[in-house]
């Protein structure tokens, strides 16, 4: 059984304006990144996976259960999602209450919820903010709190909608590490991002969504080698990939380290 199966999915918010057109996909283990133009349907797609929206046509199965037939509350035990805008997610007046809300609501006991929440906050280096009001914190900190809230729920499927928004270098490293660790724990991680360097570093599988359709799918190396298609989808190659192409290398280098290793081995 696939962890997520999407069959002939179509979706519109308003009649006659299709946001997603005939999507067929399965998700199992690989850490997957979805990229695409603003308005391509990325956020809509993950909201459908989480059951917040129901397909206009077609079906989505989460571990065999049709999202049309299960309540969002039941699905929440399987699918955690970090919202793009932290203000859409945060509503409690204390960080610890905010983080514990999800775990308590999917049936964790008080002790377990507290333990998981403190662990998640520690992972995001927010232990000293436990008693603060999330609204007194900066946007970047609020984003990290929303990530902690989802980690504490310990769901099998974790979705990040633009996790690196307003994060500095250290914040990005933290999030990268979290995504890798989740993948190592065999969680299914799906990430939406516009940061192409970030894509190159975390993904095993990249899906390019363009105007509601999947136009490209494969490893980061495959996807980033197709500069024309990327351009048509308002995307671009990572900086190092662009420079190496211009220098005449045939190979698609995704990171600086990869290129330096290659040069070292050649000389």
């Amino acid at each position, binding site marked *: 059984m696939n962890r997520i199966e999407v069959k002939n999915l179509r979706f519109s918010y308003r009649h006659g304006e299709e946001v997603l057109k005939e999507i067929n996909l399965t998700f199992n283990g690989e850490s997957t990144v979805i990229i695409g133009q*603003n308005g391509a349907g990325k956020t809509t797609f993950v909201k459908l996976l989480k059951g917040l929206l129901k397909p206009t046509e077609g079906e989505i199965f989460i571990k065999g259960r049709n999202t049309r037939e299960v309540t969002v509350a039941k699905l929440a035990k399987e699918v955690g999602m970090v919202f793009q805008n932290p203000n859409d997610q945060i509503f409690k007046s204390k960080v610890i209450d905010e983080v514990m809300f999800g775990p308590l609501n999917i049936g964790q006991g008080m002790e377990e919820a507290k333990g998981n929440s403190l662990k998640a906050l520690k992972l995001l280096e927010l232990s000293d903010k436990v008693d603060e009001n999330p609204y007194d914190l900066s946007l970047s900190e609020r984003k990290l709190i929303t990530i902690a809230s989802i980690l504490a729920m310990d769901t099998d499927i974790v979705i990040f909608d633009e996790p690196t928004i307003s994060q500095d270098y250290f914040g990005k490293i933290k999030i990268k590490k979290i995504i890798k660790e989740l993948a190592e724990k065999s969680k299914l991680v799906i990430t939406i991002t516009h940061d192409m360097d970030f894509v190159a570093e975390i993904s095993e599988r990249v899906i390019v969504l363009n105007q509601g359709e999947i136009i490209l799918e494969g490893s980061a190396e495959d996807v980033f080698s197709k500069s024309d298609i990327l351009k048509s989808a308002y995307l671009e190659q990572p900086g190092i990939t662009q420079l190496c192409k211009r220098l005449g290398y045939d190979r698609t280098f995704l990171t600086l380290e990869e290129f330096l290793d290659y040069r070292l081995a050649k000389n």
Partner: protein
Amino acid sequence: MKKIIVENLKYRYPLSEDLALKGISFEVEEGEFIGIVGRNLAGKSTLCQALVGLVPHFYKGAYSGKVEVSGMSVLNSNISELSRKIGIVFQNPFTQITGAKLTVYEEVTFGLENMGIERKEMVKRIEYVLHLLDLEKYKDRNPFELSGGQMQRLAIASIIAMKPGIIVLDEPTSQLDPQGAEEVFKAVQSLSREGITIIMVEHKVEKIAQYTDRVMLMSDGGIVDLSTPQKIFSKDDLLDYGVQAPVFTRLCKSLNIKNKDTGLYPATLGEAYELMVKYEQNRS
């Protein structure tokens, strides 16, 4: 002409014990494009708010020093006077949408109406910015029905339409697709060439290096340095400030390829490419 003069600005938020800005001084010439980089909580957003007057007029708190924009003292002017001279695009576009208008088109008119711009001129400006930010398709849509990235474009469009002499942008491209971000940088650069002064906070260092005239590196409520992109991104201790240099700079640093004239590492793809080609020729 100096468009922005900041002298020994110190500021503390109400109820907070530490200073958010610890004695900042700098000057910006008319038409300059300044990028601000630094780790989270360095004071970047607070400085933006101080330039437009939300610090201290809206946030209150303890304030000392001087901030002058277009010859007006920020402390002694009210926000509505200041809003004609200096506009800001907030970090979170959701904060910027007025909630008073039902369509994207009307949302852009909000600022213009408040300034009392003539109708004919309004229409011209609105059409220009909707085209510039690729929002024409959505002009009849409710602003709150837009995607995150579209909302961010709308926030930028609304400020550009007002044509203030100075525009402050706080991470304006954080939710934009790569080409959309590139287009915003290009549009902002062309505004600066027309004489509009630009202050932009951004984590996208490759773009900052390519488009800005000078870069301000902030840390812990102060300015570490304000200089050319090459100089800032060549700094050895840059990572200590939570900023990673553009990948082009890091590559050339690993290979020790410097620009002979400046003694600095390159910061843009174009410059890195030229120096790499020369380097490879000399080796073979």
